């Protein structure tokens, strides 16, 4: 017989165990939920964050805001739905870094609205479409 008393007992014990695991894991994830985020978006930067403290920032690069200066540095504006921040960086930009694209960077605030980046990574969204099709909205 497939589900006699012995197997039923085992099933019940197993389900209780799984419930316990789910509860414990759920609580653990719930309490550290905010810390699993890889970066802050510009509107999420805490107002109490002191200058010169390293953190990661991510957002969209504002169009027509990328400026290259003579020393090999670059400045641009990073924005999300509600706020934006100026970023300055001296180093190699990744291939996919472009205006209207997304970027994630590590660095620190040198003043309330200037972020000095030490590493910039380009982020691409989940859309894949061939070159011939053209820009998908």
């Amino acid at each position, binding site marked *: 017989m497939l589900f006699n008393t012995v197997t039923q007992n085992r099933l019940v014990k197993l389900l209780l165990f799984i419930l316990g695991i*789910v509860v414990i894991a759920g609580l653990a994830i719930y309490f550290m*939920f905010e810390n699993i985020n890889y970066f802050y978006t510009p509107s999420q930067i805490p107002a109490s964050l002191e200058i010169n403290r390293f953190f990661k920032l991510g957002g969209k690069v504002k169009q027509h805001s990328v400026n290259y200066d003579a020393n090999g540095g670059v400045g641009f504006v990073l924005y999300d739905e509600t706020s934006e921040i100026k970023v300055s960086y001296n180093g190699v930009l990744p291939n996919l870094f472009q205006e209207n694209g997304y970027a994630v960077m590590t660095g620190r605030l040198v003043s309330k609205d200037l972020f000095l980046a030490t590493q910039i990574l380009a982020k691409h969204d989940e859309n894949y479409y061939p070159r011939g099709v053209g820009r998908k909205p």
Partner: protein
Amino acid sequence: MLDKHLFKLGTIAFLTVLIGSIWGCYFTEDDFVQGVIFRLIYIHVPAAFLSLSFYSLLTMFSIGYLIWRNKLLDNLAYASAYVGFAFTLVALLTGCLWGKPTWGTYWVWDARLTFELILGIIYLSYIYYRQTNPFKQSIKFNAAVLAIVGFIDVPLIHFSVNWWFTLHQGESIKLIGGSSAIHQSYLYPILICIIGYGLFGLYLMLLKVYALILRECSETKWLRNYILNNKGVSF
């Protein structure tokens, strides 16, 4: 007789992968944003998807073993762990290779990548624990419990791009409803590759179950007579 059918399964799997990969690599255009390098998607996405599905198989077989204590369920669990671990490694490595030219780095500690690495570690610990003594009953029990506890990682990986801000991009292929963020000409080869690699993983898994059963019977007279009389097992 089982060898013949397994061989057919392996051949079908290999041909499906070949068709999907050649279609994807030679008969589609380059991606608008990434260019040529996105073709790694035909290995990376099937491997990542299958690493999760083989872990689900592992969990199901472990639950079945804990309830019915059936040796076949346990062998199926052990075999699926091997295959799933291989897919996890492939997903991580192809992901690293894809990340360097696109993002600019081989690795970041964001949610999706870290949880997938943790899945690889869980797989590895399951296999390592089992192989200390492949025949002991208590080890089979404990390993099944380990597999079930580790299953909490699978929805974390799947939903990590929706729940948290990550460097890894969101879902391109929507499993349930909605339109996919990936163009049709890319979608079909990817699906064919997923099916092909899945069948291939199934083939490897069944081959491993075959080997595990034979190993359990290695002391029996019938197997020894068979080997002595037939000069080895045919394949």
